[in-house]
């Protein structure tokens, strides 16, 4: 496991992650585990808590393929994103950077 982004703060956690690493580049698709460690002013450590999130860029690719769907694209959707709940918004959605 390698660290890709680290945040720190005080008191309650309310932290946004934009999917970028410390070099300000988007991380690759995959599952990322966020681990919260914390310590009080008296030096007492709390029990760490974790949360896994998935960075997934295939939604747009799926949408692009659905623009001209084929049976192959349908299979791609079923295979690559069976866990996603998604909806087609419309042509105003475009891949970033395009």
């Amino acid at each position, binding site marked *: *496991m*390698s*660290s*890709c*982004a*680290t*945040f*720190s*703060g*005080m*008191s*309650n*956690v*309310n*932290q*946004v*992650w*934009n*999917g*970028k690493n410390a070099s300000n580049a*988007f*991380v*690759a698709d*995959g*599952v*990322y*585990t*966020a*681990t*919260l*460690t*914390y*310590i*009080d*002013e*008296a*030096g*007492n*450590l*709390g*029990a760490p*808590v*974790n*949360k*896994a*999130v*998935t*960075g*997934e*860029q295939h*939604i*747009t690719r799926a*949408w692009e393929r659905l623009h001209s769907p084929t049976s192959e694209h349908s299979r791609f959707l079923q295979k690559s994103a069976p866990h*996603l709940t998604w909806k087609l*918004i419309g042509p105003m*959605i*475009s*891949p*970033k*950077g395009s």
Partner: protein
Amino acid sequence: MHLWRTGQYTATLTCSDAVGNTSLPTSKIVRVDNTLPTATLAVSNAAFSPIASPGAKDTTTFTVRVTDVTAVHWTFDITNSSSTIVKTFVGTGNAAPVWNGKNSSSNATAPDGLYTATLTYADSSGNTGATTSKTVRIDNSAPTATALTASNAIFSPATSIGIKDTTLFNSTIADAVTVSWTLDHQE
């Protein structure tokens, strides 16, 4: 009554009798000190854990700095929330007494809570300075955090602008003192 200014004085005594015999003078140096001593008090760990988390903030150090032309004697009382003295330090001049959280009477560690350390002091002339105090907390309880949640368990930061571009992590942390945290993302 005349008040002498602060400084060093020499008192000389010479005796003469009725027929003109005069003794040798004898003298004594005295200091008039009308200046009140001053002191500052600092604390290294406003919160510490004498029992829990060995090696991390097990004690707290009070730094006493006094100023006066004469030696300053001080007493340093640590009281609990009921104003009962649990620990006393005494000393002269600058010092840095360390409190390990134990009380003076039974050598047992005082319970978690707030404690007030009050410094009283006087110089060698009997002038008393203004008392000064600091509050410290004994905290042997580890902080707790609620389950870490993410607003979007799956998100697409680089594509589909405006739709699940980020994920927001939340957790509520509870403790008697300030807690600092680190959130590390690992692949």
